[in-house]
Every structure is written in structure tokens, then in C-alpha cells.
């Protein structure tokens, strides 16, 4: 089998690409896609660790399923929010979502 660290490096790379997308994209939907990539990276880690350490128990897979569930909920709410904001302000540029400004 492939060594465990292959998967971990893959996940780390995916995570960092996702982080870049989430932090550098101007478009809110782009940001959300970055977040999805990060969550997927986490899932790879969970499943890889499951397979390489405790294959008999399915804990890692179970957690991955929960992550997917939460990701689905997050995507639904996130996109609904973007549509609501778009209606109000006619923009999906994250840089203009600055009502938190002090």
C-alpha cells in the first residue's frame, strides 16, 4: 500500500489551496468553494487515518459522514445568505461585506 504520509501531504496541499481560495477570492461563491476544498481535505485525513490505524472500527468514516453533512448544511445556508445579500446590495464581492468594520 501507499504510505500514509502520501495521503497526509495530499490533504495538506488541498487544505492550503482551499485556504488560499477562501482568503483570496473576491467572489463570495469562490470563497465558499475554497471552504469546501478545506473540508474535503479534512475528510481525506479522517479516512486515511481510519484506514491506517483503526481499520476495524469505522470511526473515521463516521466522522467523515458527519463532516459531509455539516458541509451540506453550511453550503445551503451560505449560498442562501449570498443570494439574500446579493438582493440587498447587488454584489457578491466579499470585500464589500464589511459591516463589521469598527
Amino acid at each position, binding site marked *: 500500500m501507499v504510505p500514509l504520509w502520501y495521503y497526509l501531504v495530499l490533504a495538506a496541499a488541498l487544505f492550503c489551496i482551499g485556504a488560499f481560495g*477562501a482568503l483570496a477570492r473576491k467572489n463570495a461563491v469562490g470563497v465558499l468553494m475554497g471552504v469546501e476544498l478545506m473540508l474535503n481535505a479534512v475528510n481525506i485525513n479522517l479516512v486515511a487515518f481510519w484506514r491506517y490505524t483503526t481499520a476495524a472500527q469505522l470511526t473515521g468514516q463516521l466522522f467523515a459522514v458527519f463532516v459531509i453533512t455539516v458541509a451540506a448544511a453550511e453550503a445551503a445556508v451560505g449560498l442562501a445568505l449570498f443570494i439574500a445579500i446579493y438582493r440587498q446590495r447587488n454584489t457578491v464581492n466579499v470585500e464589500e461585506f464589511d459591516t463589521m468594520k469598527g
Partner: protein
Amino acid sequence: MTESVSSFPVIFNLTPILPLLPFAAFVLIVLWANRSKKLSAGLAIGGIGLAWILGWAIAITTFSVEHFGEHPFRVFRDWLPTGRTWQAFGFALDPLAGAMLIMVPFVCFLIFVYAVGYMGVGKPESANDERGKPAEPGHVDRLASRFFAYIALFATGMIGLILADNLIMLLVFWEIMGLCSYLLIGFWFARSYDDPKQITPKEAGLKAFLTTRIGDTLMLAGMLLLYARTNSLSFADIFKPEMLEQLATTTVNLPGVGATPWATLIAILIFFGAIGKSAQFPLHVWLPDAMEGPTPVSALIHAATMVSAGVYLVIRTYPLMAAVEHGPALQFIAFTGAFTALFAATIALAQNDIKKVLAYSTISQLGYMFAALGIGAYVAATFHLLTHAFFKALLFLGSGSVIHGMEHGHHHGHQGHGEAGKLVDWETGGHGHQSTDHPSTNLPSFDPQDMRNMGGLFRKMPRTAWTFIIGGLALSGFPIVTAGFWSKDEILADAWAHNQLVFVVLAVAALLTAFYTARQIVMTFFGQPRTAAAEHASEHDSIFQWMTIPLMALAVFAVAGGWVGIPKEFPGLGALSANPFHHYIGSLAEALHIEAAELPFNAVPLLTSLGVALGGLTLGWLVYRGAGKLRAGHHLASPPEYVDPLARPLGPLYPVLQNKYYFDELYHKVFIKGTQRLSTWLFKFDSNIIDDTLVDGVGKAGRWLSEVGRWFDTHIVDGAVNGIGAVTGWFGSVMREFQTGKAQNYLLVGLVTVSVLLGAFLLLPK
């Protein structure tokens, strides 16, 4: 569900319901009943009332269970996976929890009933009242429903805490109480005072929360270390002898201290949680200011719940504290406690606010309990925790009744006697420690909590006075009849046997306690009324029915509560008593291998405790009997006119005591001002050095360079200039965007931190 032994009475299975009852009241009030104040109060009282009855039923059943100390009842379910172990969600019932169950729900119940009167439930709302400010006398508080929801949650926290089966559960309920104390101390959040120095309820709540947080953080550190060492946080696992043995024998090298047993380090860290929660020196500063909350909250915090939680924590984790026999952990606890007992008692001598005297007295009595624990008086400390809860709740509720009586008198004096009003028309500036429990917006400022304004209330408010005096006598340890005597005497006896330095300190503290109690009673109830408000004070309003009945019930316990713990060898009375309390708690102590045998009778501590109690009371009576005498019919022009008889003999020490050894000022200067200065400095650094000098400077330099460059050779220097300009622009934009309000910038900070910290972790030597 896992149950260790199934041969328990069936009723034990209802244990997990106990904390749920007030919690259900909380949920129902918040989600459904909050429009109706009467319904909210009814729900809260119903919830805690059921908990009280069920709690007593369970606790009384435990008395007859054989070998209960060795085989406590546990019910738990795996809840939180942590690597290879599970944290359980569970409750345990043992003699300690049983004893607390006798006290906590019952005292909470009485306080809740009292709160109905205190918050004026059933009275009309006043149009003048604002949300978040105390109501005018004779009107209901606007947010009374919210109040009952909070106190119901508070009771949930305490009941859950005493039944917690492991440290995680304990921490959860501990934090629930921390949250509730913040919400309740700051209950009158909209209140503000003319004197900017006087702490507002909002600030007091914040202060309580942040001060206890210091202790909580250290406690959490202790818990984490404990988990790292033992792989468990369940009391049943941690207190196994082999586990304690291992903790006591393995050591850790602490910089500056040397090899320390893990048990000592963990015990001291956990004890810091208790220091914060139980307001011990040096984290005692929050508790007196917690008086800004409504009086039932003060009683709840200071008697039945919050501060007891700290002591309870130490009692609960006592096997850990004592894992190293007579080790530094116990010594630390003993000396912190003894010092605090004396320290707070001296401050209480010079306070004029009726509730602040009680607040310092609470700190002092908690110190007593810690000192007792530190010298190994496990049973005596538990006993004092229980008796103290009864009489201190009584005293706080009594003081609330006095304050309401004074307000009614003040109100009445203004409505009926126009001239009398002028006599109390003074400014309450000057000493910075007056606080008004119910300021009336349309009346001149007057402090109904200042004992110097009182006097002669005995005839005006007989029910309050009698019960308050009983509570006061119990606090001073009035011999034979009061509960306080038996518990204090037991602590002194233990101290005499184990540590005579602690004994002397505690004896002096007990003397001072009796003295300031006598002072308080004389100033409040005896002599003649010193103001028009005291002249017209009364307890005839309908709200006092709600308020005085709990007082009487508590008075009964403040006396009779001590009879369960009369030592067998006490001359005369001992023959009548089987000392059931010692027997009950002692069985647990034995199971945990704590030395808890009854001490042989010794005359020295007995005579000392008799002497200090009676001597202090008599001395207080003699000194304050004649103080502040006025000609008949005359009133004080202002509180400072009342000259305290101690002020002259103590000389410069008196203002020091009055100002609580200036600890608030010290902390303010060192910590708060320090933090403010640091942030101001950082801000200046940002704006001056980084923005002006660095960014602008580099920019200016760049511009200057570019001009020079253009003047010399446009083609060669251009690239360099553009580079510098880009760097400057980038730097400036990074710096500026720290406060942009854009989520992505904030997340970038997270990314930078994580990557840099991880990188550092990688590069640093192991």
C-alpha cells in the same frame, strides 16, 4: 446506562432529574412564560420546590443505606470520546452529595420564595421604571421574569455541580454558575451612579466574571494535567489509592521550585479555581462588588451556591489535595484560608454598608473552611459549609428585608412628612462605598444600605430583627444553641490538634467575627432611629410576608442545624447525641482513606471558642451601644456625622480597613491601568512608528529617492523605486487592513498565526 451496583433504593434512580427540574423551569420561562411575571415566579419556585422535596427524599434515604461511603451510587453514560477514553455524562450520589442535597435545594427554594417579595411580583409596574434598573418601592421589577429564569439556571448549576460524577461535568456546571453570576450581578445593567468611582452593576458583573476566570483557567490547566497523567477525570478512577500513590510519587521539575510531585502541582492548580470561585485572597475583590446584584442573588451567591462551590470542589477533590500527606498543597490551602479568614474579618470591622459587612464576613468564613480543610478537618469543614449556608442566607435575606424596610420608610417619609425629607437630603459622596439598592429617581439620593442611617429598627421590623439576630449569633458562634458554634468549635478543635498557628489565627478571626456582628446588630437594630427613613421603616407591606417566612424557616435551621454534629465527647450534651453528621460524612472519608476520627475532648479549644464568641459579642455591644447618640427627635445630618468608636483608637489604620487595604486601587493601577497603558502604547506604536515613521517614512523616502533618481538617471533607478513603492504600498495595505471589518482579513491573521506557530514548533529544539 451503566450502574455500578443495583442494590440501591429505587428512588436513587431519580437523582439525574434533580438538576433538570430547575432547568426545566428555566427553559419554560425563557421560551414560554416570560410574559407573565407571576407565572415565571411560580415555575421557578415549582421547579426548585420539587427539587427540594425530591432532594430531601433522596438524601434521607441515603442515611439508612449501609456502607454508603464505600459504595456510592453512580449513574452515567459515555458521552464525549477523547482518543482512547470516554468522558462520561453522569451523576454520583455519596454522603457528601447527600449532605449538600439537604442544604442546596432547600436554601435555594427559600431564596426563590423570598425573591417573589423582593422583586415585587404581584405589584403593578411603574411607568417610571426602565428596563434594567431597580423598580420603585411598591412596584414590580420590569424584568422579573428574566430574573427568575436566571436564578433557576443558577440552581441548576449548583445542584448539577454537587452531583457531578467527574471533573468535566463539574466544570460544565461550574461554568453555568459563572455565567449566571455574571448575568445576575449585572442584572440591573442600565443602572449608573453619579459618582464615577462607584462600581456599577454592569462593571461588577464583569469584574466577578473576569476575576473568577483567572482561577478557572488555572483550574482547567490542573484538570488537563490530571487527565494527561491519569487518562481519566472520573472521581471514582482518580481517587483509587494506586492512582493517588502514583501521582504522589512521580515528580515534575518545575523551574525555580525543583522536583514537585504531580499531585501537589495539580492540587494547587485546581485549588486556584476554588480561590476564584470562593473569593479567597488574592482573588477576593469581586465578591463585595457582587453586592450590586439584587439581594436574593447575594444570598444565592454567598450562601447556597457559588462560593460554596469552591469549598465543595476542594472537599470533593480532597483525596487529591491530600495525596501527599501534609504536603505543600494542604499547607498552601491552610495558609490561604487562615490568612483570608483574618484579613477579611478586619475589613468587615470598618464597613458601613450592611451587605458589604456580610460580604467580607462570607469571605472570612470561607477562609475558615479552607483553613479547616488544609489542616485535615474534612468533616468539620463540610459541617461548617452547611451551617454557614443556612445562617449566611438568613443574614443576607434579613439585610434585604432591612433595606426594603428603609426604602419604604424613606418613601413614606417623603410622601407624608415634607420636612423630614429635607433632613436626609444630602449627597452620598465622600467615601465611595455607599451603594443604593433601590434608588428612587424622584427622591434625593439616600443610601438605604448604610448602617449609619439606621438604628432602632428592632421596634419597627421585629420579625426581621429577631431572625437577623439569630443569624448573627449563629455567625458569631454563640455557644450551645446556635449551629455556628458547633461547626466552628469543631474546626477550632481540629486546628488545636493539628496546627496551632492556624488555631491562633482562626481564634482571632472568630473574635473579630463576633465583634463586627455585634456592631452590625447594634448599629442596625438598637439605639434610636438616626434618620427619618429609619423612623418610618416598617415591614407591613404585603411583600414582607413573602420575605419574612423564609427568614423564619432559615432561622430554625441556623439554630437546629448544628445539633446533628454535636461531638460525642462534649460534656453533658454529648451523651444525648450520636453525632450523626460525623458518622455520615466520616463513612465517606474512611472510604477515601481520609483521617476523620472524632477527636478526644479537649478543653482548650472549647474554652477559646466560648471566650471569643461571648467576648467578641460583649465587646461589640459595649463599644457600639453608645455610639452615634442623638438628642431625641433629632436625626443625622449626613452619614459621616456618625463617628465610629473604632475610628479614633485605630487611627490611620481605620481608613485602610475601610478602603479594604486598597486592593481595588492596587489591582486597578497594576492590572487594569497596565492593560490600558499597554494597549494605548500599542496603538501609538501602530499609528506613530508603523504608520507614520515606517510606512509613511518609507513612502517619503521612496518619493524622495524617486525624485533624486529621476533627477539623476530615470532609467536605472526607476525599477528600484517602483519596487520600494510596491513594498511600501503592500506594507501599508497589510497594516491598514487589520481593522477593515472584512472577514477575509481576520481569517488571514489566523492563517498567518497557525503557519508561523507551526513553523516555529518545527524549528525550535525539542
